């Protein structure tokens, strides 16, 4: 409880002793003082909304007020979630009451715990569990670069996605890029392990008047790793170009991760052609439609989970 409003409440009660006695009778046996003070404020503030409440008697409107106060207290202190209409109403009623962050419930809801493991999340833990650093490639010169990753991911459920026509839109660009990469690799002596893959990819993309965007996420912050994978250190890098996903790589640091991702991306260009396709993949515990670059070989394994998702919010 913030002292400021708490002080107001006690002052108010000292001026209205008949109310004080009544409101004390509403305290529950198992309620801690702190929780009670907060709930008391909620009750007193909203008393006027239910004009039929008479101190000393119980009636339906009092029960409704009590119920609302409990909904609010359960949400704040116990970590319960209620259907949206109920939450909206309660939040409105609780406006102005301040509760210390530290006093709030620290436990995760069932959905969060379960969703983090092997099951699909019902409600995915938002930003706090996967704080994400976002950087665009070092040579972000081209203004056409479409990618913009907001520092904190939007917590809203992922609804928007790429339009069905998007693959066709992007295909011509990647045909050009395919040629550029092919020539570049020829001049570099063919695809091999000893190349600076990122440099090759970057110069090719830039020669096509676009830029590579890299998103780095520390491995430990990725929510839906396969159960067997328990490595904690290191960085994971995801490469996209014009919102199209090209590859993911892992390394001890960002540089190594980026190099690995570039290598993966260049592998796609080893085929006879590249195609942009819509594909389902995991993103923060949910399944989303993503734009991905593929070679013509049938993919054996599923795609790694996406680290960024440029098709929501501002797109």
């Amino acid at each position: 409880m913030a002292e400021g409003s708490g002080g107001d409440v006690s002052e108010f009660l000292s001026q209205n002793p008949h109310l004080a006695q009544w409101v004390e009778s509403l305290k529950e046996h198992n309620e801690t003082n702190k929780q009670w003070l907060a709930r008391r404020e909620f009750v007193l503030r909203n008393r006027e909304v239910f004009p039929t409440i008479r101190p000393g008697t119980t009636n339906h409107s009092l029960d409704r007020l009590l119920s609302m106060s409990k909904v609010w207290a359960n949400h704040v202190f116990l970590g319960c979630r209620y259907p949206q209409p109920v939450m909206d109403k309660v939040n409105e009623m609780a406006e102005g009451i301040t509760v210390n962050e530290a006093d709030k419930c620290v436990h995760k809801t069932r959905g969060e715990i379960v969703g983090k493991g092997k099951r699909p999340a019902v409600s995915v833990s938002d930003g706090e569990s996967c704080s994400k650093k976002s950087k665009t490639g070092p040579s972000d010169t081209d203004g056409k670069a479409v990618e913009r990753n907001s520092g904190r991911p939007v917590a809203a459920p992922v609804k928007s996605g790429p339009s069905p026509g998007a693959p066709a839109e992007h295909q011509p660009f990647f045909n050009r890029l395919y040629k550029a990469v092919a020539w570049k690799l020829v001049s570099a002596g063919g695809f091999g392990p000893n190349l600076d893959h990122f440099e090759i990819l970057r110069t090719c993309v830039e020669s096509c008047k676009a830029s590579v965007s890299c998103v780095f996420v520390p491995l430990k912050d990725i929510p839906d790793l396969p159960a067997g994978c328990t490595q904690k250190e290191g960085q994971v890098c995801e490469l996209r170009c014009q919102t199209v996903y090209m590859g993911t790589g892992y390394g001890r640091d960002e540089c190594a991760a980026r190099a690995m991702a570039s290598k993966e991306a260049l592998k796609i260009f080893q085929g006879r052609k590249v195609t942009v396709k819509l594909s389902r993949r995991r993103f923060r515990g949910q399944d989303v439609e993503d734009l991905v670059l593929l070679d013509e070989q049938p993919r054996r394994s599923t795609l790694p989970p996406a680290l960024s998702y440029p098709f929501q919010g501002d797109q």
Partner: protein
Amino acid sequence: MGVPAFFRWLSRKYPSIIVNCVEEKSKECNGVRIPIDTSKPNPNEVEFDNLYLDMNGIIHPCTHPEDKPAPKNEDEMMVAIFEYIDRLFNIVRPRRVLYMAIDGVAPRAKMNQQRSRRFRASKEAVELADEKQRMREDIFQRGGYLPPEEIKERFDSNCITPGTEFMDNLAKCLRYYIADRLTNDPGWRNITVFLSDASVPGEGEHKIMDFIRRQRAQPNHDPNTHHCLCGADADLIMLGLATHEPNFTIIREEFKPNKPRPCALCGQIGHELKDCQGVAREKRGEHDEFADTIPTSEQEFIFLRLSVLREYLERELTMASLPFPFNFERSVDDWVFMCFFVGNDFLPHLPSLEIREGAIDRLVSIYKDVVHKTGGYLTENGFVNLERVELIMQAVGVAEDNIFKKRKDDEENFKKRMKEKKKRLKAEQGPAFLLGGQFAPQALGGRDRPIPVQNARHTAFDMRMEGNRYQQNKNAAESLRATLRNGSKAPAGPSDGMDNRGLKRKAEDSDSEPEPEDNVRLWEDGWKQRYYKNKFDVDETDEEFRKKVVKSYVEGLCWVLRYYYQGCASWKWYFPFHYAPFASDFKDIKDMFKDFEKGTMPFKPLEQLMGVFPAASGNFLPTTWRALMTDPDSSIIDFYPDDFAIDLNGKKYAWQGVALLPFVDERRLRAALTKVYPDLTTEEGRRNSLGSDVVFVGKSHPLCDFIIELYRSESCEGTEIPPELCHGIQGTLNLDEEPILPDKPVESPVPLLRDIPCSSAVGIKFKDPQFEERHVFKAVVLPGAKMPNKVLKPGDWHRSNSGPWKPQLGFNPNRQQVHLDQSAFRTLGHHVNSHQQGSGQHNQPRIGQHVGGQYSNAPPPSVYHQGNYRPPLRKDPPPFQHSRQHGFPRAPPPSHQQQYPRPQRGGHGGHGWDRAMQAQGTAYQHNVQRGHGGQGSYHQQPPRRDDRRPQEGYNSGRGYALPPPTRRYNWSS
């Protein structure tokens, strides 16, 4: 009690309490199933009087089984339940009473547990359906194949709650079932059947206890009744002990961990839902003839003998030089009480007492220390002496700090060990051990005489060390090579594999999965403060609040013990917190509890549904009632959160954690419901009312005529059962409004089953004997009760007096050991002869495979008795050759000899063989004797048993010494 670990702990510590069930399987003849005659003697060589079924333990696995596909509709579920009961009846074969109790409305104290179970179940079901849908799409996209989705309604297991239509149906079906069996099954002919359905308030097992308790308290009770209670809950053990009946046995499904479960999508076994690939089913057997067989064995049952547990406890609890006379029965009650600290359905367990950490042993040793000081026992007849409890709690409190530290250490050590093990497993490319020493293979027929194995463990150790050395050599060589490659850089050590430092370390070899953060850190100083801050959100200084928690917990302990010994003291009381206090907080508790509120009433069934269901299960409720769960303007909307927090509380999985659900405010619930009560239809009104137990008997039961007479005279007052008609059972009979009457048809509620054209059963309402309110049920052994024979090896057993100790494996100490008759030996001899050329020794294990037993007709005590069993040593083994000649008159070829394992090996292998040989001679004699007199004795109906039959009949005098001819004969190597 929701403590699965308790049973595991108990059966490990006291292995002899477990006896595997012998079950007679029904046979098929020309495609017709021959029903088993359960009026025949019990193949377990014991006769039970009363069988009690805690039906919820049957309903759940039958309606949503975990190891097989779920039944398609309600009818199939009912049939599954009937079959399950039949199976139990066949194993136990009660001779007097069958009591079926379905959970009714539970006391308020249980409500929060029920709430959290149902809220969780509802969420899990939705998640599973989602996941299934997603995987389905995924698999189809990848071109996989899945069997078409069966069109069936998702079964919401939450409907197994009193007040729902499902439960109402179930009660109807059970009435039909009882009428059918009483009419058609000879084993049921003289049984009195009690049905306590969901409309009777109280948890199933506690309704059963109430029945037993009240019967014991009336003078006509037979103190030597042999009770058998079916159910898997650990608290049945407590309840059974609390009755102080000398003959009490619990039957439950054998717990087999890690049973394979079929994939929820394609129904195949071998992978989980998330790994489903949607590939075509593999053929089972050459022509797919085993397609429908489940690879695991059928669920087996075990008996848990409480009389043996009492023997164990007597040894453990007996204290010499007490300042007061030692009373074993009282100390059992104290033991039961202390088990409640470790966990029960009504209170969270104390944070420092964890059953896996030997909490009960710790408590017992503290108890034995403290009881000298307390001057008496902790409890009496279910009433707690708080002063003495405080002493125990304080003693636990002293150790608390160390317990938490040790817990952390153990945890760390465990992690370390697992890591090491993983590493070792990875490193183990070479042999894990090298075969050497006495286990090294030796040529058959060589010159060396076979030597008995000596000190096998040591040899095994040597072999392992040898293997290690081999591994180390390899590592050393590798590191040397690496050193040469890397020049001067010295390797870290041979154990630190070189591949570990590569850039692309595989993800698997890092250790832990992401672990939940533990803010309380009980192992660090200041734990108490942090615990209260984190769990209760109060400061260390808030003494008052802490006292409140302790007071509630103390009330809880009193309530629970009273519940077990006297029945429900208050329907209203509950523990209003999510966590328990520390043992060290139990200070000055003497005056914290006086008595419970008198005259409380249970909820009505539909009211209780409102209290335990999440909004998602609202479809089981009338519309206007349901609206109270979702309407933002409802005055009880706060009871129904969508999602709720789970505090893992140091555990790993969500289902182990504490569900932080709000508690129900009874006043507000009732107030809100008064508004919607008028909306109930008459049918719903009927479902919402409290019902009564019903008793059924068949026509040949002496009570039958009495009941028929009551119906004829239409007496509307309750009538006492004359005790002599029903083995001394008493109670009040009231006419049933829709009775099942003899010679009337009973309509089948399940379309799959036929109507009974002319039932010979009669049913009437039954009420347990009533006692005045202040009556205290005494927790004592009744006068006239005869204690069963001891089973455990006496502490002062000397080999010299009576030879080696022979452990008792079944109920009967003088059990007839299995023998083969002559024709069996001929068959065997034939097979041995025909197989010996090619397969040699191999035919032995093959024979043994499908035979469970080690010379007994009970399956071997595989899981629970490990290491405990020793084959009886014969003092004087007869010459081998001789007995064989005796057994095989047709003289097998002499080259046979090496095939028999060497008798010196003592353990497995040879045993069955020469045993069988030896038994042959005696078996023959037995057969002869049997031919004279014994033969007929078990075909005839066992003599009608009257009440006060001498007890020893069960164990020795019943004269079913020889097994009935239909039995399986088990023997093995």
